[in-house]
């Protein structure tokens, strides 16, 4: 058993243990921190596979971006230290069964299958090679998806602003009559919600 094997199993334990704790922990803050460990373990996998660029992107985007975003939204929406509700027993049992059966079936199919590679000499996955092929307009370039993804990011950014912006209700400009008409309707909706909860 060489060092490479030991490192692989340590990383795998981090990834799977972190993932398991992230989906089962009852405290949402701990859940997010375990997700962080799992994502760092995955970045370790990429280093293990000599894909330094992907590993750096993983650390920057996931660990530095998404997990911090999730932590901020937890701060904004949860009181500190509250436990989440336990999942209903029936749903937990059936979900675990479905996941376990799917996992075993998929692992069996993978172990039965023989994968055939191209066997050609390796191309070094350096940032230079990646950038040159991604921005190339020749036959195997990835410039079109690159542009599409940049449009997607722009759309997501504008969408986030539109969704999360606090709309000031223009009550001052609206005539007083209409204001009186609108308010009771809102109250009724709130009452309906309350009765449904009970």
């Amino acid at each position, binding site marked *: 058993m060489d060092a490479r*094997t030991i490192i*692989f199993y340590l990383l795998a334990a981090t*990834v*799977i243990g972190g*993932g398991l704790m*992230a*989906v*089962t922990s009852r405290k*949402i803050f701990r859940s*997010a921190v375990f*997700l962080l460990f*799992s*994502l760092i373990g*995955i970045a370790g*996998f990429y280093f293990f*596979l*000599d894909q330094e*660029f*992907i590993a750096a*992107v*993983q650390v920057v*985007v*996931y660990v530095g*971006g*998404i997990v911090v*975003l*999730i932590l901020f*939204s937890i701060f*904004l*929406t949860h009181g500190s230290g509250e436990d*989440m*509700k336990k999942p209903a027993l029936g749903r*937990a049992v*059936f*979900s675990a069964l*479905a*996941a*376990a059966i*799917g*996992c075993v079936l*998929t*692992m069996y199919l*993978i172990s039965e299958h023989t*994968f*055939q*590679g*191209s066997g050609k000499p*390796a*191309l070094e*996955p350096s940032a230079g090679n*990646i950038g040159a092929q*991604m921005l190339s307009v020749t036959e195997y370039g990835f410039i079109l998806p690159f542009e599409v*993804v940049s449009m*997607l990011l722009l759309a*997501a950014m504008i969408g*986030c602003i539109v*969704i*999360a912006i606090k709309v000031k209700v223009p009550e001052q400009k609206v005539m007083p009559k209409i204001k009186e008409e609108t308010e009771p309707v809102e109250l009724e909706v709130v009452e309906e919600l309350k009765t*449904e*909860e009970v």
Partner: protein
Amino acid sequence: MQIGLFHFLFVSCALFFIGVYGFLTRRNLITMLMSIELILNSVNINFVAFNKFLFADKLDGIFFTLFIITIAAAEAAVAIAIIINLYRNYKTIDVEDVNTMKY
């Protein structure tokens, strides 16, 4: 035994179904989003492992991984905007309590 493709496929398979379990049991929108992140990451491990062990002469797996990471970031940002807006209107982010559009 040398660490090969199958090791990575097994780990990513386990991670995928951990994410599925979390997605099915959790009723809180933020934890469901976290489960989706786990699922997307398991897919990324698959792409990178296939690229490394089978098709090392190409970079396609790396490009797919990069695009998936980008889309996951956009998805997380939009989802969190929706969650915060939902919390502002309903004071809860539990999927059982928010059922205005259900009927």
